[in-house]
């Protein structure tokens, strides 16, 4: 008896996610919570990781950059998957808001990819003796991921019509997903400089609890930070896409009053 209203409620939630004013308000309501929570987590994680956690027996204090490097690398790939899934949903169900999400994720993902590359280089210098190693597959594919993000953004910009840009660039985003598993498994397939997986591996994480807990806090903090920026960007994107509609114009009138 209960199943029917439950299902219809789910359907309603799904349809509401296609409604720009609803998502605009939802993002507006979520954003402050995400912002505060991410700031708290980032502060706690950074203090724990940079001050309280013990130095590594091999790398000394230089290992502490993992508290920036690992979360940004994880978001660079997670962001790409999110972008591709959103673009795919937008392509298949012709959902404009999903394309909007993909558009908002792309520059964020590109920045986190760049951050992962830069922090990796800074970490690589004391550890491997070099900022950059051309022979390392993970470094190479992370760089290619950055190019994919840039390609997606450039392809979008070269169309005049937004709808066509949405649909064509969505296909590119979906094709580029092949790169993500390659990056994840690159350290197992080609063992050169980059170390093997630490967190997601058989037999559990290979890192001591004192270092693991702040890393997990930082991962959560970075993810919420990403979500916060995404909410803010999504609000802007919705306003831009819906600027000719009545509800956005009402919103502008209210804001001016």
């Amino acid at each position: 008896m209960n199943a029917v209203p439950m299902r219809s409620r789910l359907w309603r939630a799904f349809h509401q996610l296609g409604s720009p004013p609803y998502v605009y308000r939802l993002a507006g309501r979520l954003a402050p919570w995400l912002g505060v929570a991410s700031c708290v987590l980032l502060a706690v994680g950074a203090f724990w990781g940079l001050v309280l956690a013990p130095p590594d027996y091999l790398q000394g204090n230089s290992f502490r950059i993992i508290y920036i490097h690992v979360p940004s690398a994880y978001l660079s790939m997670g962001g790409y998957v999110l972008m591709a899934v959103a673009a795919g949903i937008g392509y298949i169900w012709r959902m404009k808001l999903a394309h909007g999400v993909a558009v908002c994720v792309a520059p964020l993902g590109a920045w986190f990819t760049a951050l992962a590359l830069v922090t990796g280089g800074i970490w690589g210098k004391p550890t491997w003796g070099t900022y950059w190693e051309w022979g390392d597959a993970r470094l190479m594919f992370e760089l290619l991921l950055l190019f994919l993000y840039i390609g997606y953004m450039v392809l979008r910009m070269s169309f005049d019509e937004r709808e066509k840009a949405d649909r064509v660039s969505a296909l590119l985003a979906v094709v580029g997903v092949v790169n993500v598993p390659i990056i994840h498994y690159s350290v197992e397939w080609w063992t050169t400089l980059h170390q093997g997986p630490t967190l997601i591996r058989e037999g559990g994480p290979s890192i001591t609890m004192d270092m693991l807990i702040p890393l997990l806090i930082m991962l959560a903090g970075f993810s919420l930070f990403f979500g916060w920026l995404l909410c803010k960007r999504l609000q802007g994107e919705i306003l831009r896409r819906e600027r000719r509609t009545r509800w956005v114009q009402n919103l502008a009138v209210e804001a001016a009053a």
Partner: protein
Amino acid sequence: MLDVVRQILLRDLRLAFRRWSEMATPLIFFVIIASLFPLAASPDEAQLRSTGAAVIWMSALLSSLLALDGLFRADSEDGSMEQLILGPAPLGLVVFAKIVAHWAVSGVPLLVLAPLAALSFYLPLTALPELIAALALATPTLSVLAAIGAALTVSLRAGGTIIGLLILPLTGPVLIFGTRATELAALGEPVAGPLYLLASVAVLAVSLGPPITAAAVRTALE
């Protein structure tokens, strides 16, 4: 079904041979890049031997990019692509036939030219069969990627300039396994591993590429 593939294939090949200068340009480009490289690096025999594989693979990659702009552009400009979209044949098959035709005029000649270039880079004669095998397995993937790039940009006036940006990042695996196979062959080591990997990448590309390309063409021209 197969008749559609045959018809499109024959038509595209006939068109390519009638405009043979367009067909020859990427191949001449390949030869020129490969022969300019020793000018830029050094003509030293040991160095040429060590960089030869990389030069051949990069030249192949770049020349396959050059060949792709005409893949859908001419057909979409004169309206025949719209007819093919509206026609009864599945667009995926049509696109597959066009990719095969593209491969036949851009990939197959490379299989002949690349060994010549390889010899001039002092690659041992015994490594040539492996080089040809690796190129034969890699060029279909490159043709599929070229088709995806051409389809994504077919409705853009200046499509040719950004195709490289879209497609080159995806060629990483082909480049890695291709040069690996060539280097191993030059050292006289077994090359089955990278060849199998190239083959699996090709299977993936050839099976998933045509439907994606078809979707891109349909989207770009709708």
